[in-house]
């Protein structure tokens, strides 16, 4: 089952590699991982998307907590949460495709952020299934390049993760 785990950790050299090393050493999978400093520059916040049985997820959160630089760990999927991923897709846009791509982008509430005679670059934000849906909605041969940030997650309402 899919889980999204949010981690607050010391913004120190090597902290990220400890997290990544933990996943590879213990055979856990990472589907996506995003990290950046928070409003407090001494802290980084990481969102890890992973999958596994309840036992595996329990071990993942325990082992994350065991890392010396990790301050807090929350499995967002245990409660209500919101997730967003940014995707940029460069698509072929020539002839009658051009109008069609524009329309598809509008339907998915995407924005065209770069234009050439032959291509569009479309920016989309949403949960991962929405971005997946966009990719399957357009003709696969038209996709020239995609880049996705991976999921970022935050708890809904009063669920707050901070030190």
């Amino acid at each position: 089952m899919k889980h999204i785990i949010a981690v607050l950790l010391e913004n120190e050299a090597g902290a990220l590699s400890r997290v990544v090393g933990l996943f590879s050493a213990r055979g856990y999978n990472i589907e996506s991982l995003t990290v950046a400093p928070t409003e407090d520059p001494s802290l980084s916040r990481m969102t890890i998307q992973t999958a596994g049985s309840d036992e595996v997820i329990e071990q993942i959160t325990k082992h994350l907590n065991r890392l010396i630089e990790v301050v807090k760990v929350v499995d967002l999927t245990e409660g209500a949460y919101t997730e967003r991923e940014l995707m940029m897709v460069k698509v072929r846009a020539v002839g009658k495709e051009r109008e069609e791509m524009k329309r598809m982008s509008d339907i998915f509430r995407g924005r065209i952020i770069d234009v050439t005679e032959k291509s569009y670059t479309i920016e989309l934000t949403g949960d991962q299934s929405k971005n997946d849906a966009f990719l399957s909605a357009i003709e696969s041969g038209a996709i020239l390049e995609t880049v996705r940030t991976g999921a970022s997650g935050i708890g809904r309402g009063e669920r707050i993760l901070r030190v």
Partner: protein
Amino acid sequence: MEISKAEAVSVSNSAASRSTTKSKPAASAPDTELRGAEVLIKALQAENVKFVWGYPGGAVLHIYDALFKQESIQHILVRHEQAAVHAADGYARATGDVGVALVTSGPGATNAVTGIATAYMDSIPMVIISGQVPTPAIGMDAFQECDTVGITRPVVKHNFLIKDARDLAETMKKAFHIARSGRPGPVVVDIPKDVSFKKVLFHGYPASIEMRSYNPVRKGHGGQIRKALQLLLTAKRPYIYTGGGVLLSNASNELRQLVDLLGYPVTHTLMGLGAYPASDRKFLGMLGMHGTLEANNTMQNCDVLLAVGARFDDRVIGNPKHFAQNERKIIHIDIDPSSISKRVRVDIPIVGDVKDVLTELIAMIKESAVKPDAGALAAWWDTIEGWRKRDCLKYDHGTNDVIKPQAVVETLWNMTKSDDVYITSDVGQHQMWAAQYYRFDEPRRWINSGGLGTMGVGIPYAMGIKLAKPESEVFCITGEGSVQMCIQELSTCLQYNTPIKIVSLNNRYLGMVRQWQEVEYEGRYSSSYMDALPNFVKLAEAYGHVGMLIERAQDVEPALREARKLKDRTVFMDFRTDPTENVFPMVRAGSGITEMLLSSEDL
């Protein structure tokens, strides 16, 4: 690529993070200007470090110069960095203090890795200081450069690369704090050469430190302990199973109180031997792959299991599916939450320091109106005694022409059981025989590599302990295979006058490998016979020690007696033992713990 960019972000912000730990300065020391290496020495002195095992090299020359100029810390020059870490590790296991090793960059650090991993697997508190090439040279493939922090990351509790000499004192404080608190473990501190040379203002060594990201619990959850109490007191077939955590927490007395108060049977893992006296009837022997029949059968058939500072590893519970066939309630006390419900589902987890939790549990038992069910307990003991009657450690003593390895260990135990003795071992058959036939009555007397199973630890462990405990006798029970993996340390034993007694059970085979090949590979002895062994007597003499060759059973006791008389000499006893002997009982890989082979007739 994405990852390394994010790393770059963290690096650029590292200065800001210094404020995230609070350290209390030592009582108003006047600021003085010191070199990084001198700050390091101040830190070691403040941590009460008496011995540092190490090996010099380019990147640590400033540190060695600072060591030269002081007297309170003794440096022991080993012959190989691996042994430096093992010796400091052995010292830590015997004393409970943090062991300290010092190695140079590159090969010094890579040679130390086996020792670090050994300590990590058994949760031994250590600080390993490694030299690093100067900061401007890092990443340039400089001479003797390696990414020590990267290489050691999976085998340390934590590690640090100190890029600024001003961070030295606080980082050392953190290193010692992390190494000894919570679930202990090795911490590597990598110090570039320019950092140890640079002069900085020294404001005194912090008296204490707080880290917002690291706050290990000590006290167990009261409600959980109360639940455990109910379960324990209403058990019909209770069992107490303990591991290295009891020794690490110095909770042997508490465990003894608990067992005696309840009258329940108790077993230990390989790492836990000595926590409860082996000579007491309530102790059923070691459990697991080479555990006793009674210890394993009790494990399988109990209805309430109290696991203390143990982690249900594969050598202990065998096939987890087989283990799960019998229903039982499990209470698990451990300081590391990630050890709980890792391999076996637990009903009542209690996260906390073993000593604290047991103390609380004992107090509750004393106050409780409910008492253990005497009738059920008596019936349970009857069942257990039935298993014990099988006398699974019985072995054929053979004729005088052949020395049985078990007999050597038993003889040693009989001769030394009331003396102040430490036993180290290497890894293999001799290790199992030592664990089975030497009955440890006291904690921290049995020193071996349980988790990683590192051959070669025996001699370095023994010399590390002998330095800390010069009045005690230290025996290293080993085999001719293991002993050659760190035999160069015989030289260190002479230089630092750490006389140890090496009991080598020489069967000309890598015995445990040979045993598995006999059991699992139809006797195809692939590369397990050691041809062209050295003459160990001459080898010992070449290193300046005493060598003895013992070939007949009747000579075992006199040889041990003679060796013990040579108090100030290291003695290498080369016992030629029965090459066909196997360790029994044995649980084959993939089998359940009660599916045991009891002798070669079961093969």
